[in-house]
């Protein structure tokens, strides 16, 4: 028995030992963790559920768990920025676990000025967009990626000229002449809008747009127009990636104006009694000759890698655009490297960033044509009669000497050179040091250099009168910008207890910009072979005063700023900031300004009384107030009385240079002051399926900068002075909503949109300047019939009312006297207020849908409530002009031969809805492909349709300055169809 038992047990033990040893040697749980692009994720934590056994993945994302006596276990994998995943693993069956990026995590952190903040702790009004939120397709400027995406952020693309970026206005106009471009901050480097052309659109990780004063006051005297902060992509620690992005588009003309063709021009000209000598018998479609289909290519190669202590990312981007107008095009190459190294036991972090860009643009010549119709080249194609030949019998470009300053647009396109090149370079270094228990210090320095040159040549063969008069004119222009920035910051974080959190930041900042350049012009060339490349080949006796010039100026801005954040129990959040700015460009009496702000947020869902409700997962109320400034409108040396070159004068028997006062002194010149209050509500409902934000704001801009007309009396040397006098009011409401209609394993459908409503009013214009009362009102703007009037919105149309056509075919208006004359002064009682040049509302609608590997997204955007003065319609409807130019086919019906007025006959509603973007994407399954870990193909259509009553080419016209709401001919707008490719290599 004993033996039996011994044997029995002994065998069992033996078997068990064997079994154990077999298990210990072969029965493992192993796997690999990868990201959404199937790239390995090193450093992910893998834990066996219900135990404390855990491991982390290696550099290749692989892990192995110690054996257990189970045949299957459940593991949980956690990795920052990804959803935690549970997975059942079977012994000895290696698995690949793909983590899904945490949607919330991507936007968890919001970049605010001089720091970041958790989105939940945000107190100001900030639009935050991740790379996935940006518009796809044929994109050549980062701003195009934002169109229709953020409430209160207007991206306005006028025409599709290569190299011409859209404008951006955040919460509308807050300044008349002081500039409304937001401050641009790219990875800490501050600059103007041109800094954006150094940012590859595909390398943007996130865009944060600071909208309200409590957010922008930290930028002080430059914060008023808003701030756009771009953070470029970094490689995550431990990951290695090689990625290639490509997008190629075909760009076609989306709309043409209907002008008379040769046959109908001949017929109408005969009917209107035009002398037969004006008909040159050809059949030319000038618009067709001058336009073509364009192609836009966008290539980007990026790679990076590293560990916890070191990582880098490098990328090379090439954008190549061929324009719709023949000869125009744009090339942009950007190379960048960013590297981060930790030292001193991870207490010191050094980040370096080097970026170099090359821009080459060929623009369509501007300011061509006769004095009465100076516009861009494409508008000249409207003017040219369809019966005019392109070439004369001798082969030269045709020119009709009987037409005043006749211009042959094809000759202009073929012979005029208008090249703009620039090289941009910036570098920055950031050093952050953890000093002691929550105290840290940082240093940041950046240096940006932009060197550019333009070459312009207008030969006499261009048929342009000025070029003929001079026998060819060529000029070159070189400019050099140097922008330096340095800041030193100190920050301190402290948790007093579990409920009271406090952090503070102090910054000293120093910025200096130097601008210099030169210009030289030559005239009178025996031939055009050397173009603008050898000005000395021109006729030196024709050189005029002003043909040679150079300049240099600089500006510095010195600032001290501080911010305090305090939160109590994660319920009540308080932010207060102050900045003190001193600038060289301010007048001697106003060198320094202070810009304080404060904001408070209440996270209502954190309150006890909200614990039991399930409707709201997040509800936060924000209120803020701040004082910001704007100094864009002030250039170097604007505050001092200057004498400059003023042509030549004949004096003392000879022609000598003349000098005259060019600028009045204004020792009080200073920044514009914008005081803004904002209240907002952020909410998430139905388990985060509905997310939304509502913001309301009101702001007053005081000390408005305006170039006032002053009498030449008293202290004034010239008839203009830049002074801070008027004030302007802006009010608005912004709404952002997104709703996940379907959210299942394979399918998601999200409806998202935003809308903003805004109104502005001129509160005062004239007033005291240098001790003198300068009444200013009814200031005519460059848009015909558009005015600045106290008590009315910017660009109010005060316009004569069309009443018909008289027997002579002359347009009549309300208020004419017996001689057919009407008071056209701005204050005339016959001018009727017929609306404003700026939109009253804007919106974007951005639904998206995914099914398995397939995704679709759309962008619809629109604006409205504004009027457009259709100058093209006016110019091309006057029947009496038919002898010297072409007309719109719609002109005949109007019966207007001539008009001494610009009446409301030409004022049109500018509202529109544009189907801006439609994209189909497909992620190819590549589990068995050796070298490629992810591949995505996309098809995008842009500007597919537009709904508008506007009869001109496109209702999206200038709305970004005081020349808003005027159509005098724009570069055609493209409709594009593009194919995109995204490849990630293993």
């Amino acid at each position: 028995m004993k033996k039996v038992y011994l044997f029995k047990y002994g065998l069992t033990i033996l078997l068990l030992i064997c079994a154990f040893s077999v298990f210990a040697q072969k029965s493992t749980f192993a796997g690999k963790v990868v990201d959404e692009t199937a790239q390995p994720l090193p450093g992910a934590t893998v834990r066996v559920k219900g135990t404390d056994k855990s491991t982390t993945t290696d550099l290749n994302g692989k892990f192995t768990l110690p054996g257990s006596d189970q045949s299957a276990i459940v593991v949980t994998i956690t990795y920052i920025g990804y959803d935690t995943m549970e997975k059942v693993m079977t012994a000895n069956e290696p698995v690949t676990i793909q983590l899904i990026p945490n949607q919330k995590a991507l936007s968890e952190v919001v970049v605010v000025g001089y720091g970041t903040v958790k989105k939940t702790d945000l107190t100001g009004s900030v639009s935050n967009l991740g790379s996935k939120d940006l518009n796809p397709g044929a994109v050549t400027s980062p701003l195009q990626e934002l169109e229709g995406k953020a409430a209160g952020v207007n991206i306005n693309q006028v025409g599709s000229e290569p190299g011409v970026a859209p404008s951006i206005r955040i919460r509308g106009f807050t300044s008349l002449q002081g500039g409304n471009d937001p401050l641009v901050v790219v990875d800490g480097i501050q600059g103007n809008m041109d800094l954006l052309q150094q940012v590859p659109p595909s390398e943007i990780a996130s865009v944060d747009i600071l909208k309200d004063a409590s957010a922008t006051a930290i930028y002080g005297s430059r914060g008023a127009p808003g701030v756009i902060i771009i953070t470029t992509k970094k490689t995550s620690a431990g990951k290695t990636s090689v990625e290639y992005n490509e997008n190629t588009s075909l760009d076609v003309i989306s709309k043409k104006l209907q002008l008379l063709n040769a046959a109908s021009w001949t017929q109408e000209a005969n009917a209107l009694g035009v002398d037969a000598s004006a008909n040159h018998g050809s059949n030319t479609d000038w618009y067709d000759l001058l336009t073509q289909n364009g192609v836009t290519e966008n290539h980007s190669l990026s790679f990076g890698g590293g560990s916890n202590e070191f990582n880098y990312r490098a990328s090379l981007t090439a954008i190549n655009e061929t324009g719709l107008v023949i000869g125009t095009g744009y090339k942009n190459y950007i190379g960048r490297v960013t590297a981060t190294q930790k030292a001193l036991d991870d207490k010191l972090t050094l980040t370096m960033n080097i970026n170099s860009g090359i821009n080459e643009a060929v623009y369509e010549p501007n300011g061509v044509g006769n004095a009465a119709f100076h516009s861009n080249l494409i508008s000249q194609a409207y003017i040219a009669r369809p019966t005019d030949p392109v070439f004369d019998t001798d082969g030269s470009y045709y020119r009709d000497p009987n037409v005043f300053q006749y211009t042959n647009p094809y000759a202009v396109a073929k012979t005029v050179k208008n090249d703009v090149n620039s090289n941009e370079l910036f570098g920055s270094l950031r050093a952050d040091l953890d000093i002691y228990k929550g105290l840290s210090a940082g240093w940041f320095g950046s240096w940006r250099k932009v060197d550019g040159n333009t070459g312009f040549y207008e030969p006499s063969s261009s048929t342009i009168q000025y070029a003929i008069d001079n026998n060819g004119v060529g000029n070159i222009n070189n400019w050099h910008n140097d922008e330096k920035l340095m800041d030193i910051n100190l920050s301190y974080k402290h948790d007093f207890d579990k409920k009271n959190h406090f952090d503070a930041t102090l910054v000293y900042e120093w910025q200096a910009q130097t601008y210099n350049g030169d210009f030289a012009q030559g005239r009178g060339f025996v031939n055009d072979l050397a173009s603008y490349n050898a000005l000395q080949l021109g006729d030196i006796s024709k050189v005029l005063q002003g043909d040679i010039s150079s300049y240099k100026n600089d500006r510095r801005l010195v600032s001290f700023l501080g911010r305090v954040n305090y939160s109590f129990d994660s319920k009540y959040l308080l932010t207060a900031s102050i900045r003190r700015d001193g600038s060289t460009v301010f007048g001697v009496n106003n060198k320094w300004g202070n810009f304080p702000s404060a904001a408070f947020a209440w996270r209502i869902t954190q309150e006890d009384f909200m614990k039991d409700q399930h409707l709201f997962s997040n509800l936060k109320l924000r209120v803020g107030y701040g004082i910001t400034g704007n100094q864009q409108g002030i250039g170097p040396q604007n505050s001092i009385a200057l004498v400059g070159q003023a042509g030549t004068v004949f004096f003392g028997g000879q022609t000598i240079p003349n000098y005259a006062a060019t600028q009045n002194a204004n020792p009080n010149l200073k920044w514009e002051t914008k005081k803004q209050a904002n209240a907002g509500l952020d909410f998430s409902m139905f388990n985060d399926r509905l997310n939304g934000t509502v913001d309301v704001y009101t702001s007053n801009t005081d000390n408005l900068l305006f170039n006032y007309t002053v009498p030449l009396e008293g202290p004034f040397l010239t008839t203009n002075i830049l002074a801070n006098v008027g004030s302007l009011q802006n009010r608005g409401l912004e709404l952002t909503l997104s709703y996940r209609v379907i959210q299942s394993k394979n399918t998601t459908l999200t409806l998202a949109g935003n809308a903003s409503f805004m109104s502005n009013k001129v509160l005062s214009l004239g007033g005291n300047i240098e001790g003198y009362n300068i009444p200013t009102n009814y200031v005519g703007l460059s848009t015909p019939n558009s005015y600045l009037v106290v008590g009315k919105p910017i660009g109010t149309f005060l316009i004569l009312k069309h009443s018909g056509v008289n027997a002579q075919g002359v347009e009549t208006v309300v208020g004419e006297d017996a001689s057919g004359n009407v008071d056209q002064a701005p204050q005339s009682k016959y001018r009727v207020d017929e609306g404003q040049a700026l939109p009253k509302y804007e919106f974007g609608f951005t639904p998206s849908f995914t099914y398995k590997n397939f995704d679709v997204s759309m962008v619809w955007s629109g604006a409205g409530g504004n009027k457009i003065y259709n100058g093209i319609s006016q110019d091309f409807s006057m029947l009496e002009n038919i002898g010297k130019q072409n007309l719109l086919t719609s002109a005949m019906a109007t019966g207007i031969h001539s008009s001494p007025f610009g009446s409301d006959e030409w004022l049109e509603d500018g509202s529109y809805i544009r189907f801006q973007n439609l994209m189909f994407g497909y992620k190819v399954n590549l589990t068995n492909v050796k070298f490629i870990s992810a591949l995505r193909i996309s098809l995008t259509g842009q500007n597919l349709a537009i709904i508008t009553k506007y009869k001109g080419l496109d209702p999206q016209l200038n709305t970004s300055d005081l020349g808003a709401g005027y159509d005098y001919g724009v570069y055609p707008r493209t409709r594009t169809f593009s194919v995109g490719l995204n490849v990630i290599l293993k």
Partner: protein
Amino acid sequence: MKKILLSILIIGLAAQSCTKVNENVYDKYAAAQFYSTPAGADDALANVYAKITGTWGSNYAGRDNCWYDLNSFSADEQVIPHRNTGDWQLDFAQLYTRTELPSLGIINNTWNWAYSCIYSANLAVSELTTAKADPSKIAEAKVMRAWLYYLLIDDFGDVPFYTDNNTDISKIAQEKRATIYSFIVSELKANVDLLSETRGGTYYGRFTKWAGYMVLAKVYLNAQIYTGTPQWAACLDACSKIASGNFTLHPATANTAAPLGNTYYELFGNVCPNDETIFALYITQNVISGNIYTIRSLNSANGTALIGFNGWNGTIIPGDFYDKYDAGDIRRKQFLVGAQAGGVTYTETVSSLIDPGAGPNEGIRDVKFFPVPPADASGESNDFPVYRYADVLLMQAECNVRLGNTTAATPFLNQVRQRAGLGDIAAPTLQNVYDERGFELNMEGHRRQDMIRFGTYLLPHGAAPNIVPAGAAYQQLYPIPTAALNANTTLKQNPGYPN
């Protein structure tokens, strides 16, 4: 905590040296520094001439849309009709037909031009005085200023008056025409004898003693209009001062090398001849302003054939003005009518001035300033004679006639007629003098003032079908421009005009 304080201290020290925000000026002259040098004071004087000659929209004459156009198109000697081909704005035709409004750009430009010149003259006076410059230079600036005020009261009547730029605007009053008249007379009397007597050379295009007396003569000539009291004898005195400068009429002899085949037209050529010219604007196309009067008149093809550049098809001479000329008058050569070079035929009759406008080849054209190089399609280099001796002779004739001294008047008038190839008039009447002024001085900016003085300005004029009806008395002054009224609410509009 010590570390924090230390860090703040370090940053504070570093910042101390980097908080300067004073402005650097590299590429401009600060006004105060510029004018404090003797060269700067001289430049202040030269700048007044630069302002007077000016360029587009701001000039005495030569370019367009300012003093010359205002004072010429409102008279009967020239007009730019709107063309039924869609060319030409109505401004010029509105002046001719007396339908202009106070907001008309040409009126505003003239006002702004005059005050910007006065400002520059004030600056020159004060800078030259500070620099203790030669008294003749200070006098020159003062005479220019007096001349500018004379032009202003002639056009606008009561105008804002100041002679020191550092005057509080609220203290700059709209002075009575007669008050400013007194200032002009006394300022001229005090200064003209200090001016240079040199004709031409370094004083070409400048106010000499002779130009100074010319201004005084003009002011006296129109004194009755300005003050109600005529000053014919005083005008004669001033004229004899000018005559003492040994001016003579420039000879008019047939010469194929001369413009329009007669040396008379050298008076309106590249440089105005010193024998007759008292004060001229020096013009070189593109370098110093430009002279557009011929290119603006010719039509495109005729311009190309005649001078090599496309004309603008603008200015025409109304038929009634042209018809007064004697066929043998050498001064009629300046007008083009009938078949012309370039296959163009200009008709004397113009069908319409405004609605629907004239046909492309309608209207008589003018080539008084026959283009001299450098020239192009935007102008020529003909100098502009502001004042010349023929005017002095005609003033002497006029004053003598007005004083009842017909015998004394006769030789003055007949000198001018003889040169033009016309016969003598034995006993000239005011009408004879008036007509002769029109023949001799047309297109030179004098017509409106002459018409007002001779009482013809408000009469109907023009050739059928474009007869301009009689004007109202108030129209002998222009309205104060709307923009000026807006900028200075204390200004009072001239009677008869809306604000």
